[in-house]
């Protein structure tokens, strides 16, 4: 079966994430989780045991930057796949104004989100910019000994900005897990099997649903 985004599948389902978008998502996810765990180990003495469990402090220090490159690569591929769909629209501005209803699960009172709602777009851009900051500061932290003494301010900036950016991604990560695994039933399956039900599309992404249906109806004419 050819896999093409937005393709209507049997049993009232629609393909949301083709294979390469899904596999890339999991490359980002697994590398992020490793980075999160080892990063937390370096963040606090109370969590240093995580590095011990993951093979020891030396191994964690050695692998963290390399896995970071994988994560950065995955985020950049996401940029390639999704950036055009992540531009802010008029509906997004209304969406933010109605955020209270979204939080209270009153989704029928939300403006009609497109393929991505404003929150998802914010998540995307948060991870995109944070990944750039994490890469740049991470490169300095990777080779601190090769930063000349008169450029030591680079190290001072990096040692502070790297955890700041990481904490920012953690906030986004927690929300992302919560929304996709717990709050919106069906979202997790979409990034495993790739498809969602048309009800799901209609409920959470009415703008997208309309597009799909119109496209399908047009092709049938």
């Amino acid at each position, binding site marked *: 079966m050819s896999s093409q985004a937005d393709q209507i599948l049997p049993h009232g*389902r629609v393909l949301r994430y083709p294979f390469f978008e899904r596999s890339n998502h999991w490359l980002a996810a697994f590398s992020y989780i490793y980075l999160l765990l080892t990063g937390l180990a370096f963040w606090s003495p109370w969590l240093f045991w995580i590095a011990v469990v993951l093979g020891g402090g030396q191994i964690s220090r050695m692998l963290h930057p390399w896995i970071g490159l994988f994560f950065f690569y995955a985020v950049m591929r996401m940029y390639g796949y999704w950036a055009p769909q992540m531009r802010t629209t008029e509906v997004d501005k209304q969406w933010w104004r109605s955020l209270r209803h979204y939080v209270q699960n009153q989704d029928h009172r939300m403006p009609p989100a497109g393929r991505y709602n404003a929150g998802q777009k914010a998540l995307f851009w948060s991870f995109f910019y944070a990944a750039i900051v994490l890469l740049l500061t991470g490169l300095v932290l990777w080779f601190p000994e090769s930063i000349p003494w008169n450029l030591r301010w680079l190290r001072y900036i990096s040692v*502070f900005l790297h955890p700041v950016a990481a904490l920012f991604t953690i906030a986004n990560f927690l929300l992302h897990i919560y929304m996709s695994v717990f709050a919106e039933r069906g979202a997790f399956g979409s990034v495993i099997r790739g498809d969602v039900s048309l009800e799901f599309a209609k409920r959470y992404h009415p703008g997208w649903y309309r597009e799909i249906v119109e496209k399908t109806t047009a092709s049938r004419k």
Partner: protein
Amino acid sequence: MSQATLRIQKISGHAGSVPGEDTQRQYTVAKLIDTTTCIGCKACEVACVEWNDMPFSATEFNNTYQTMPETRWNYWNLILFNEHEKEDGSLMWLMRKNQCMHCAEPGCLEACPSDGAIIQYTNGIVDFQQDKCIGCGYCITGCPFNIPKLNQKTKRVYKCTLCTDRVSEGLEPACIKSCPTGCLHFGSKEEMKVLAEQRAEQLRTHYNFPNAGVYDPPGVGGTGVIYVLHDAKNPEIYGGLPKDPRVPLSVKLWKGPLKWLGNIAMVGGVIGLFVHYLRYGPKERDVESKEPHQGAEP
């Protein structure tokens, strides 16, 4: 029970209490370096390399006495030669033995994330434990004196131990032992400070160095290595000895407020999401239809 842990008062990357904190009456030790009587013979450098059995480190020749630009992972003790031009146009040598300063509040130890990789003994010596070092290099960033150096092969950081192995046996550090002019002294911090002040006073009153003084920077809580300088107002002329060394502000912010804010935000975030789920639950439980959708292809 190990005597060694009882003699430790600070441990890097350590959760919980420190076994040796305030449990022993011990002198804080200090090394006194009188730069005014140093002749730059490098005996202390050789003694350091010899005592610590360090492999040969290649020198560099650039038409000066400076045979290497800075300390290395296997060269912990280096005399910095500075040709200083005085106000009257005449030249004078400023020679400073450079090594770890053994700060009372060490930036390396504060920045280190690895449990026990950097420790401070109750006598004030700051020592790296290479078996626990993970090679992250945070100590390099935490140090205001540019002292910790990474070994590329072992990926661990090394520096002067103040010959803690000798000191714990009641001996003075190897560099002190080797000094032919007596410009190096070793003893309790209190004694060394008295000796240093006496020498500075002598320099001011009898040797025409009105700015002579003692270098024991308070920004890092004082140091376990103190200098007598001809010109204590301009320590920078001694090969970049920082005037007011401090643990970098960003390291302080990172290990202080940011850590608290971050921890509260992370724990608060998880609790907040859990409470949200208890209050509102999932958005729609039966949104995933098991039935074939009307209008879709069978």
